[in-house]
């Protein structure tokens, strides 16, 4: 047993440091008791309790440091003193605040409070989206709400709050917006120009953007409003706000509103508002017995004196023969799927779908006889899974399944490019298209593939390379979704033209 008592005069360390040092020393093998402390009354009493003799300390004061150790032997004492010196010097080593990084904010409201921002882009799971979006509005931010699966009453509440604060709520379920040449969500790279768009459909807006851009017609802003904005419940709250804002914007020369057919009363309200505008407004209500998106783009281009004569397409080296059989649509864009179904059903009759045009065309599972089109971007298909514009795995599976199905068929696919979308969709889809066609051909059947390619020349994926890769795989590629749908209908009907 070795006892060591030492007083270091004028050696001040704060009590927290010395507690740490004491613990470090006590952890050394062979140390029974270890106190490294300032010589305060309290600490001296503790020493006495532990049986250290007060006499050894002389006239130590609270400004002196005492070191009291009881160890198994001299060697343990040396280790203990070494550990103490290391611990003391470590405690005073500079740990500057310079390497400190503030943790990122966790909620939108807090982020807004400490930064100069004006727009929140929210894509959290739908069940949590309302709180975050409301927080953003109350912090004075406009909101682009990508999240889907948000109940309509929450949408109404958000838009009421937004209107009260003069803030725009884009969404929920808003896939696309372009604000001041900045694409939010899934957005194509378009040139700046005179057309402002209000869109209740993400892929609808993207389709019109791409067709206009190809005709050298630029976009000023594309303000998404969410697919339900023109419903009776929501009452076009965001559409009317966006319309007024674009009307007030001197650089916007033409306003295009793209939506599925609205609730009739809401449609009247929008028409009235459009009439009040100083800026010309083109109402692009798309759907059955309505315009298609390509017709909306054509009309818009016409209005700004850039008429479109024909829409870009890329043909494979071998022109595909008709493949009389069933038509399969595998879509990532809801509006594109909807538009293709309208065109196909007009010519072919019922088209079964998970977003059916008629209630009794609803699909049970994803396999059925007859013509079928599936929207893989629909709410229930994206729960807990990336959007099909990012992740092609579901559609690749379907493509393989189509190839296995006996008989000749036509497959219609959309490929959406732009910010947010997969960096190289053709890299995954082109080999699958070629493979599927080969499987059918080996069997003696024909599989015709038509692609609706929604992209611009300036999109990060290099649209023309994407188109070429798909055409090389044997697909016919159209920039116009309506054009692609008509081509698919022609092929499946056995029309050689």
């Amino acid at each position: 047993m070795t006892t060591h008592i030492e007083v270091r005069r004028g050696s001040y360390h704060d009590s927290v440091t010395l507690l740490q040092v004491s613990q470090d020393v006590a952890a050394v093998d062979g140390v029974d008791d270890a106190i490294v402390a300032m010589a305060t009354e309290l600490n001296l009493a503790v020493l006495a309790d532990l049986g250290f003799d007060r006499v050894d300390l002389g006239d130590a004061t609270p400004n002196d440091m005492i070191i009291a150790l009881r160890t198994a032997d001299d060697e343990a004492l040396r280790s203990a003193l070494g550990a103490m010196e290391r611990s003391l010097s470590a405690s005073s080593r500079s740990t500057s605040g310079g390497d400190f990084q503030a943790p990122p904010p966790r909620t939108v409201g807090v982020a807004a409070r400490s930064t100069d921002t004006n727009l929140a882009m929210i894509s959290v799971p739908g069940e949590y989206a309302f709180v975050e979006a409301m927080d953003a509005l109350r912090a004075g931010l406009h909101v682009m709400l990508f999240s889907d699966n948000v109940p309509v009453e929450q949408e109404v509440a958000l838009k009421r709050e937004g209107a009260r604060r003069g803030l725009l709520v884009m969404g929920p379920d808003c896939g696309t917006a372009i604000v001041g040449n900045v694409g939010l969500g899934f957005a194509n790279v378009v040139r700046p120009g005179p057309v402002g768009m209000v869109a209740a459909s993400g892929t609808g807006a993207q389709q019109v953007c791409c067709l206009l851009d190809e005709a050298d017609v630029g976009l000023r802003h594309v303000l998404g409003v969410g697919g339900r904005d023109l419903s009776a419940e929501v009452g076009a709250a965001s559409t009317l706000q966006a319309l007024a804002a674009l009307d007030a914007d001197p650089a916007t020369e033409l306003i295009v509103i793209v939506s599925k057919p609205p609730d009739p009363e809401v449609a009247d309200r929008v028409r009235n508002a459009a009439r009040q505008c100083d800026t010309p407004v083109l109402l692009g209500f798309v759907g059955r017995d309505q315009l298609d998106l390509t017709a909306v783009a054509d009309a818009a281009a016409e209005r700004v004196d850039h008429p479109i004569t024909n829409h870009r397409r890329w043909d494979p080296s071998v022109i595909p023969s008709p493949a009389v059989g069933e038509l399969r649509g595998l879509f990532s864009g809801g509006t594109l799927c909807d538009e293709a179904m309208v065109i196909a059903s007009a010519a072919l009759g019922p088209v079964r779908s998970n977003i059916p045009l008629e209630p009794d065309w609803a699909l049970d599972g994803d396999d059925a006889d007859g013509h079928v089109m599936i929207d893989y971007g629909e709410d229930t298909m994206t729960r807990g899974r990336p959007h099909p514009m990012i992740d092609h795995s579901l559609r690749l599976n379907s493509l393989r399944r189509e190839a296995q199905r006996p008989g000749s068929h036509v497959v219609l696919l959309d490929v959406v490019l732009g910010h947010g979308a997969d960096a190289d969709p053709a890299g995954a889809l082109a080999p699958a298209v070629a493979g599927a066609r080969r499987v059918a051909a080996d069997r003696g059947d024909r599989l015709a593939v038509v692609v609706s390619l929604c992209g611009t020349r300036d999109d990060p994926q290099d649209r023309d390379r994407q188109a070429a890769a798909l055409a090389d795989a044997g697909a016919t590629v159209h920039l116009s979704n309506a054009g692609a749908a008509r081509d698919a209908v022609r092929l499946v009907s056995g029309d050689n033209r």
Partner: protein
Amino acid sequence: MSDERGPLSALLSDEPRVVTAGVGLFADALAAQGITPVRTDWRPPAGAGDALDRIARDERVTDANATAVGRLQSARPHLVDVRLARDAIDGFEDGMLLHAGPPIEWADASGPLRGAIMGALLYEGWADEPEAAGAMVERGDVHLAPCHEHGAVGPMAGVVSPSMPVYVLHDAEHDVTAFCTQNEGLGKVLRYGAFGRQVIDRLHWMDRTLAPLTRTALRSHGPIDVRSLIVQALQMGDEGHNRNRAGSSLFVREIAGELVEVEAAARDIADVLRFINGNDHFFLNLVMPAAKVAADAARDIPGSTMVVAMARNGTEFGIQCSGTGDRWFTGPAGVPDGLFLSGYGPDDANPDIGDSTITETAGFGGFAMAAAPAIVRFVGGEVGDALRYTMSMYEITLAEHAAYQIPILGFRGTPVGIDATRVVRAGIVPAVNTGIAGREPGTGQVGAGLVEPPMGCFVAAARALADQVVMP
């Protein structure tokens, strides 16, 4: 266009400045366009998602919280008197003892609370033996009530008996009064559950010497603005909860002249000065009631989700919110993580105890850790950790304190006004500094460190707030 363009016109004539929450890909896509977004580290709430939805619908909340946090900051607590608890505190009946934290029965009380109750009975002369305490409380001879329900706060066990002197703090702005006993020092003390002879003797010295002298000195000095002392202490390395060295010194400077002039034996005056000088926590018992005054000024604002009390009784951690009155929301008290005094270790630690979390409630203590980097060494942290503790508290608070500032953060106001809904949303619980009491009654202090409040009490508060939402 007119100059008074609305926010939407402003958006459309500028480049957007974006905050993102959710899918990182969209933030990446913005960065690729040269628009560097502010990325949040968003995560699902810790619970009660439906309650958060309902609260978000309530249009009163924003204004109610602004009012609450405004009142919390505008309170100017002054030390106005030192009196006996039985005279100062309304409804302090004979046979009653106040304690820290939410309400508790003897059967559930932990060692240090039991020890402090025993000590208080001995001190009052209601019992001759500590062992008598349990039976007396269970028979109803002695009645327990939370300090918080009587305008008081108590550190650690927080036991207040009628003969103990208390500081009286008053805020004229909101006409709120709060009380707290005088600090006994460190080591074996009643608040840590010790009840030996020396503990009781010291308490008697306090009521016979310390209290009368400070009372007389104070009355001749006039009210002391405790908030302004806290402001200075935060700029001198204190955070006001686990470190009150600067504040204690400032208090002595303030009162020393009047103390020396008190007509008393020079030995007594010197004892008082030495006692204060030897106790770095002397000021704690002044900052706590100052914080209590501020928090009580913010009570009972309908719709407010702001926390107005956090307190532990050694068994449960409880909170109260401005919009839910006197209701407690509780969860199990955690065991602090920290450094232990020689001879003690984690096994000796009692679960978290004390009303001192009123300091964090009022925007300092753990929330001002960046002002007192020395404190993080309690848990082996570094200076950067102190900054991180404070910075992460901005995430769960409503404002930056107008008076309490942190030099190293460019004199930024401390994070103040805990929003229970933000705690749940961010999944961040308040950072709490604390002393550690020994588990066994009679032990006293065994260490000091940090502790995490249970998330469950914030989730429960969110549910209760949701139940009284006013829908538009």
